[in-house]
């Protein structure tokens, strides 16, 4: 294989250079898309699932005639980027990659958000979903969720669950589990998934609900034990891991990632962008790219996405209230 890459490398560099300089106006399919450069704002640092989805879609849209770039504007759990898009010119040239937190959880955590997830944004399409996995350190003598619950009940107040931060799906899944299973476990928040995994691997903390894609390599290497996934069905990348429901715990949650536009964007432009994004998500290349990192592609219609935002928002409001996780008052 080593022989194969050198030529591809060089050609690839040239191709990359031209594609991203935004040269060449490839007309055709993009007739009703806004002219000029379309920017997808990712409200988090690069490298995460939201960034990978946005870049894959942007690249496909660029290859089919538009010029689409990704702009990372991280800060305040996504609020900085969301606020920026909410206040942008509603001409379809500035769009937001909005994960579950920005649209359905943060409104219940923070009293001052700087944007309204419903009044400020028009849904375009739900890109996909990623489940969380319940993973435990091997020192915990539990091979199933039932055994974990029994162990936690025998040792009340002893187990710690790590999360990637306050108010993240990892934290709230832990709170849901705590309530549904009736166990006493302590939440220990971290700044992101990597430092939390580090302490889980060394046994400082005993369990965690982490996004399946980042947890998976450690499960496969048997450094951590995967007990369940939080999605309604088993995940194709880890078919041997049961769902929480199957394991007898009535809790279900997936992280999801969608695209939205400023609410005043004209309807026909919304439609054109939405269609183009759905086509990108359904293309073989993007599909393969995203499924590899654990994303289950949805690519639904704007109305379906709007309905999901409404139902999810209601669900997480309750979870946040139950967990007492509201951050400011």
């Amino acid at each position: 294989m080593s022989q194969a890459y050198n030529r591809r490398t060089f050609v690839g560099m040239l191709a990359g250079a031209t594609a991203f300089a935004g040269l060449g106006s490839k007309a055709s399919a993009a007739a009703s898309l806004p002219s000029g450069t379309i920017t997808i704002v990712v409200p988090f640092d690069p490298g995460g699932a939201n960034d990978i989805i946005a870049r894959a879609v942007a690249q496909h849209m660029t290859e089919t005639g538009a010029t689409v770039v990704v702009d990372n504007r991280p800060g305040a759990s996504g609020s900085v980027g969301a606020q920026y898009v909410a206040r942008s010119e509603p001409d379809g040239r500035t769009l937001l990659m909005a994960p579950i937190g920005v649209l359905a959880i943060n409104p219940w955590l923070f009293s001052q958000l700087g944007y309204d997830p419903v009044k400020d944004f028009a849904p375009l399409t739900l890109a996909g979903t990623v489940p969380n996995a319940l993973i435990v350190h091997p020192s915990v003598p539990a091979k199933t969720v039932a055994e974990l619950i029994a162990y936690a009940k025998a040792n009340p107040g002893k187990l710690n669950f790590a999360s990637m931060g306050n108010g993240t799906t990892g934290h709230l899944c832990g709170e849901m589990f705590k309530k549904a299973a009736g166990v006493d476990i302590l939440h220990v928040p971290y700044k992101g998934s990597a430092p939390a995994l580090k302490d889980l691997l060394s046994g400082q903390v005993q369990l965690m609900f982490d996004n399946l894609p980042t947890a998976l390599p450690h499960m496969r290497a048997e450094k951590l034990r995967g007990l369940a996934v939080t999605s309604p069905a088993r995940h194709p990348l880890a078919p041997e891991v049961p769902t929480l429901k199957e394991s007898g715990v009535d809790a279900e949650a997936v992280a999801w990632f969608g695209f939205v536009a400023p609410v005043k964007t004209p309807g026909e432009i919304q439609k054109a962008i939405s269609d183009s994004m759905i086509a990108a998500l359904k293309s073989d290349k993007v599909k393969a790219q995203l499924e590899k990192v654990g994303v289950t592609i949805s690519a639904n219609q704007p109305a379906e996405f709007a309905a999901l935002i409404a139902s999810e928002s209601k669900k997480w409001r309750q979870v946040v209230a139950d967990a007492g996780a509201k951050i400011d008052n």
Partner: protein
Amino acid sequence: MSFFDGLLVAMEPGNLLACFVGALVGTFVGVLPGLGPVATIAMLLPITYHLSPAAAIVMLSGIYYGAQYGGSITAILVNIPGETSTVVTCLDGYRMAQKGKAGIALSIAAIGSFVAGLFATGVIAFVSVPLADFAQQFGPAEYFALMSLGLVGAVVLARGSIIKALAMIAVGLLLGLVGTDVNSGLQRLTFNLPQLADGLSFAAIAMGVFGIGEIFSTLGQKRSGAQVVAPIERLWPNREDLAASAAPIARGSIVGSLLGVLPGGGAILSSFASYALEKKLSRHPERFGQGAIEGVAGPESANNAGAQTSFIPMLTLGIPSNPVMALIAGGLMLHGITPGPQILAEQSLLFWTVIASMLIGNLLLVIINIPFVGLWTKLFKLPYEILFPCIVVICCVGTYSVNKMPFDVLVLGLFGVIGYGLVKLNFEVGPMLLGLVLGPMLEENFRRAMLLARGDPINIITRPISAILLATALILLCVILLPNLRRTRETVFQEEA
């Protein structure tokens, strides 16, 4: 698979080109203040979609350690830390430049980085697995103890009054409190500004107090149009300079390699630690801050070694230890390689290719950097009215590019004014910046350790590693405070600049 298989792959034209491009881009990114490897790698990530996984990671890692070389250039020439990890290089590098020794400082920085780069490459190749295991023993309690030791080290950074140094550390700690509290999620000192929710930008503060503050105070002192620096006597280090630098480079390489493995700290912590160590070991600590060559050689070696060994947690455990590593991990995932504990077994050719490319990359960086030393020192011939506006513009653009927030540019300006005031009042900014770096990590880990121990502090002291670190901190504190308290009265005369 062995190192030589990796070397063969790394020597393939495409990968060699990727390595060269990475090193070159890294150098430029390092020179440009504010624009750091995180922003650059984020921008270049899409291009690597078209490369092979090996070429992609070779190029991205080249940018990262290349930036450590480039970052010293602006620190030495114009007192602006081009990278956060070159903050301490400003302390003595800039003074050396003012004494006509810019060429020597630049060469020593490049040589130190090169030696440290080779050393760290060896460390990754031969002892990465045991080192990673060692790093895994660092839990919240151990991090807290290490940060405490670091804070004591911050006192060593100071050269004038110890009371003022302590005050500056406290200011730094307070500045570090701004932002979202990790445990409760509450916002502290943010005045409901979303721009402050993630804290103050370290890059903006460092550039403000050093670079912009320096411009203000220079303009305040001199009226003439040409720069007042001593004439350049010689460009290259002589045998004496090299002899003085050898031990600091060796110690810096070791300190950097060790601290770099610990997630979170990495390059910046290692450069501060190396500086404090050199000053403490020196028979003439009063020379530090006045252009001591050891104060450039040690930290510049340490930050490069630290940057390279910060790859170890990702390459062995699959855990990215800092934002740059997280980006590189994201890049690998796009190529279908999920970094994890199996990466060493499943992708051993890739592992050795990256290591071999580090060897080549460090060689390329010396070749890129040394010939430019003469050119860079010509910068001093530029009159102020051209140089200063350029610096200010570059600082503003650089600061903005990190988070794309105009707010950060305001922070830069504000801290420029504050930096000027501090210089006038003989307060040193080094301890403040170290407080700012260490404070949030110290607090986060202390509170996490207390949470895990259910509020029992004994747990922190009884763990062996944290006990040793805390004891060292205590002893160091006594060693520093006793002679310093006696010397306090003399220090009044030491300040001349």
